Every structure is written in C-alpha cells, then in structure tokens.
C-alpha cells in the first residue's frame, strides 16, 4: 500500500466520531497531566493505559498518541507560566517563555508556543508519513542480528546522550535489563530470579516500572518541595494576540526547526530534549540579534517549541516502522501498543494498516485540536497549576496505584510499585538517569530473544554480528556513540 492509499485508510479510521472524541479526550488529558509539575508524557501515557481496556486498539492508540503530544504541550505551559518545566523536553522553552510571561505577555508566549507546536507537529507528521513506510519496507528484510544491533544502538545512544555521567546512564540501562530477566525465560521455560514467588513468574509489568520510576519518584520530590509557593505568583495571562511582526519572526525558526527537530527525533537516543536545545542554540547562532535570546525573544521561544513537537513525531518513525523505541517516552508508548495486543514493527504497515495509518492520520487531527482546544482554553487550563501541592501529591499517588491495580488486580504489583518508587527516588538523589532504565526494561526481552535467535542460527558463533553488513554497521555506530563523547571529555580536560 502506498503512502497515499495508506493515509486515506488512516483518515477513514481516524475520521469518525468515536476516534475524534478520543483524540480530543487524549489531547485534553495529556495537556492537563503534562502541565502538572514533574509529570511528563511517560506518566501521562502510563496513567491513561487502563482507560483503553476494552477499546478498539486503533482508537485506543490514537488516543494515546493524543496523550503523548498533549503532554508535551502541557509541559510547555508550566515552563512558560512558572519557569517549572514539567519535563526536560521543555526546559529550553522556559529560557524565553518565562521572561516573556514576567513581562506580562504570558498570553502571547502561550500563543507562540501553541502555533509553533502546531507547525512543528504538522510538518513532521508529513515527513513521518513519507519516511515510515520506506523504513518499514527496508526493515522487513532485517534478520535477528540486525535487530539485535539496532537495539544495542538504541540503548548505547540513549546512554551516551543522557545528561550527566555516561557510566551512570549505562549502569541504569544494565539495571533495567536485569529487572526484565525476572520471571520465566520464554525460550527455555527456566525460572530466573523468581525466588519461588508465583507473582514473579510472568515478570514485572512495565507499568510498575514506568509509574514507579517516574510518577512515584516525582511524588517524593514534590513532598520535599510542597511548601514551594511559586505557583501562587501565577501571572495574569494577558492577551493571546500576535502581531504580523511576531509571525514574521516565528516563520524562520518554525520552518527550519520542523525539519531539524524531526530528524533528531528519528535518531535513536535523541529526542525532544536534545532537539529543543539544538534548536535554541542554532537559532541563537544565526540570529541577527542574539542578545535578545533569554530575555523574551519570540524566536527563542518558537525554536524549541517547534523542535520538541517535531521530534515527538520523528520518534514515531522507528517505533512504528521498526518496533524499536528510541527514547524512554516512546518505550512506554511501545508498552501501550503491546498491552493492546499490537506489535509495532515492519509487519504493522501490511498487517494492521488501519492502526499504522490511523495513528499517523490522527496526529494531523490531534495537532489541530491542540491548537483550537488549547488557545482559547489556556487561561482555564492554567488553573490546574494552582492545585495545592498536598492534594496534588495524594492524587498522583492514587492515580499511579489504580493505574497498576487495574492492569494486574494484584496487590503484589502495588508493593513492587512502591519499591520502584523508592528506587526511582534514590536514582534521582544519586543522579542516575531513569530513561535508560525504562528503555532497557522494554527492549530487554526483545534484545535477548534476537541475540539467542542469531546465535542459534550461527551455532553459537559471535561472528554472525560482524559478517552481517547491517548489524556490523549498526554495532560500529553504537561503538562510535561512545567514543565521540569520550574524546570530547578528554579534550575538555586537556583544555
């Protein structure tokens, strides 16, 4: 099926009352959850998963996609209004968004954010529509060695690109992989690390890990910061109107960063965070008046906002066409696919075209909703930020618990959730990044399977990874992803 026929199928799936309603619901819920301090797309997707039970998988996934970009947008709102970016992807948004809000132009900043998100999102969905089928048709010939190498690249890339120490990021990834070995080994039926506990036979559910490491760990941080009153100084939103001059200034960054952001989003390991920083830095470099950046520049706000939304759709390329997430957030998204019984990957486009294209088509609709829902409703949404912290903490705890309980109906999983909340908090204290952990947890099973399949094919000969051209190229790339940052560090020290 070509792109054009495909997208028609997609619009047929996405353009009915039910789907549109659920996209709206997803965007709405995503925006509100994303706005809450510390809760980003990962928590938003994880909390919403129980809602999708019993729904048609294509509608459910369309809604989850809405939650995803809604949450990214919601994060920008708190970054602009409170200088409290909910997720790292919106840190760069606060650089110019917050100064603008302080100057009493919060409404203008929110409008710029909404419009550049819309442009970034829409342009990149077009690119996604063109690129994903091509990658799918290439990936269909990939054997287990290539898949193995691809996942190794994904993991090393996220580790080498995460903030702070690369060693700590790798340790985090290894720990995530270790946790996934708990349970019955699917290939041999051997029990591993179950300690005779029946509840561990099937391994741990990914929701336990996602909500524990992200939402509950954030609860601990919120408890410590509960007396923070910054949200009380919420500025008056002011007018949302933009002038012709504003549009003119935005057009440059928007057109450039839609493409750049998309490309960065496609790359494994890099995502909205890196895309938004690169966008900010590159626009500052080419700007005629770089000194305005950081003081409420229109360009400085439009660039990261365009880029982080473009990267969000870009990240769907490897997820949909290879079945391999490149970031923590898309890893949780993959979890949502699997919960609904859909396996993303090269076969998805041919076997379940209504889902493949439906998700893509829904992004056009979702982006439009983001714009028309959020622009007029922003002043009301912003009230969410005023929820008193103690109440917010209790609610986040309850939502996480019910999210897990509604999947497993087992209190054992709730104890595990609490345990991973504690682990997540300790990881934060000692600066171990959590995204590599969740990515390794989700990829671990597939990685082990492809490794064992490859070695079964080759009778245990490791050379199979080097003789296969795709896997050897990918493995060299993953090696390089380490060598380069290392060289950079050594240079820095010498300098």
């Amino acid at each position, binding site marked *: 099926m070509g792109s054009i026929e495909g997208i028609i199928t997609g619009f047929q799936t996405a353009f009915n009352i039910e789907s549109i309603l659920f996209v709206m619901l997803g965007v709405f819920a995503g925006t509100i959850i994303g706005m809450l301090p510390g809760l980003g797309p990962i928590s938003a997707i994880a909390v919403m998963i*129980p809602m999708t039970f019993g729904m048609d998988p294509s509608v459910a996934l369309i809604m989850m996609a809405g939650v995803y970009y809604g949450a990214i947008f919601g994060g920008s709102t708190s970054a602009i209004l409170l200088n409290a970016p909910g997720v790292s992807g919106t840190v760069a948004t606060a650089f110019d968004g917050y100064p603008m809000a302080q100057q009493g132009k919060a409404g203008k900043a929110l409008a710029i954010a909404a419009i550049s998100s819309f442009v970034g999102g829409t342009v990149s969905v077009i690119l996604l529509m063109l690129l994903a089928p091509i990658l799918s048709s290439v990936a269909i010939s990939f054997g287990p060695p290539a898949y193995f190498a691809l996942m190794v690249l994904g993991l090393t890339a996220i580790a080498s690109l995460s903030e702070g120490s690369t060693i700590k990021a790798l340790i985090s990834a290894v*720990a995530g992989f*270790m946790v996934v070995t708990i349970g019955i080994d699917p290939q041999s039926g051997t029990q591993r690390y179950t300690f005779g506990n029946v509840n561990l036979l099937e391994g741990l559910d990914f929701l336990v890990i996602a909500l524990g490491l992200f939402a509950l760990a954030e609860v601990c941080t919120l408890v410590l910061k509960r007396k923070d009153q910054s949200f009380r100084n919420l500025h008056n939103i002011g007018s949302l109107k933009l002038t012709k001059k504003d549009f003119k200034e935005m057009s440059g960054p928007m057109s450039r960063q839609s493409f750049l952001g998309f490309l960065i989003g496609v790359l494994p390991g890099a995502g909205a965070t890196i895309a938004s920083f690169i966008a900010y830095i590159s626009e500052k470099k080419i700007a005629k008046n770089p000194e305005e950046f950081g003081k409420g520049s229109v360009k400085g706000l439009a660039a990261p906002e365009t880029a982080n939304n473009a990267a969000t759709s870009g990240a769907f390329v490897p997820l949909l066409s290879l079945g391999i997430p490149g970031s923590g957030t898309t890893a949780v998204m993959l979890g949502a696919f699997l919960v609904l019984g859909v396996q993303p990957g090269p076969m998805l486009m041919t076997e379940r075209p209504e889902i493949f294209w439906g998700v893509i088509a829904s992004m056009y609709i979702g982006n439009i909703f983001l714009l028309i829902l959020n622009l007029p409703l922003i002043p009301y949404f912003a009230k969410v930020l005023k929820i008193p912290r103690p109440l917010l*903490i209790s609610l986040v705890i309850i939502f996480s*618990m019910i999210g897990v309980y509604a999947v497993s109906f087992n*209190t054992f999983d709730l104890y595990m959730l609490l345990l991973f909340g504690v682990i997540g908090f300790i990881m934060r204290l000692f600066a171990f990044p959590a995204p590599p952990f969740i990515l390794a947890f989700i990829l671990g099973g597939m990685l082990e399977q492809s490794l064992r399949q490859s070695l079964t094919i080759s009778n*245990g000969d490791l050379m199979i990874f080097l003789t296969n051209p795709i896997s050897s190229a990918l493995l060299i790339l993953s090696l390089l992803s380490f060598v380069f940052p290392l060289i950079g560090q050594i240079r820095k020290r010498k300098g």
Partner: protein
Amino acid sequence: MLKTVNKKVSLVLLAIGTGYLILAYQIPSYPYTQIDADVIPKTLGYLLIFLSVLLFISKDSETEEQKARRNIPKKEVGMLLVVAGLILLYIILLEIIGFVLVTAVFIYSCSRFLGYKSHITNGVVSISLPVLMYLMFTELLKISLPSGILPF
C-alpha cells in the same frame, strides 16, 4: 578511601552485581538449546561489576546542585517515611475494606498530613473522586475494583 559518594555508590552496585551473578550461576540449565537462559544474566552481572569498577575509579563530576539534592533535613525524611507508610497501609487495606473507602481516607489523611488546611475542599475531593473513579471503572470500563465492605 571512600571519600566520594561515587565510590560508596559503586561499592553498593558491586555488591548487587555480585549477588546477581551468583544467582545467575545457579540458574538450572536446559539441555536442548544453543544459548541457555543463563547467558544474558551472566553477561549483565559481569557488565554491572565492570561498570561499578569504572564508576569507582572515575573522577567525581557531580555539580554542587546535585550534592545539595541529597541534603534532606531529618524532618523531611520523616515526612517521606510517613507517606510511604500511608501508601503501605493503603495497599494492605485496599482489598479488605474496598476501593472507595480506603481511597477517600487516603486522600484526606495524606493531604491533611502534608499540610493542606482546607477541610471542606479536602473532604469534597476525597469523597467525590473515589466515587467517580469507581463508577467510571466499574460501569464504563467494566473493570471491577474491590468493593470491600460496601454493599455495591
């Protein structure tokens, strides 16, 4: 010898890696497979040990901000422990007393404990939210939550 935090952390990780590895060697073998179930666990165990050693010898590059993050006053640690205790109680009582009641009591007491002073709002939220969620899950989504001692 254990001057930096990294060194202490790496020793803990080393212990975890070793424990994991010891258990990996106890995984029963399965004769009919090329690559057995213990290959990945053993690799991961050695990898963690190797990385812990790297962490031990690497230079501590923590910023002051990161160090400050660990400086939690004793009173706050107590707060965290009480919240964890409340969560534990919630889990224990969830299936015995039922979702609606336990959740209502949890939201009210946890918010109150963390310093939320408005009794009325707190009361309204802690009663209406569990009831709404319960109805949504059981009626709309057909997911049954524990009803406990309540008759419905």
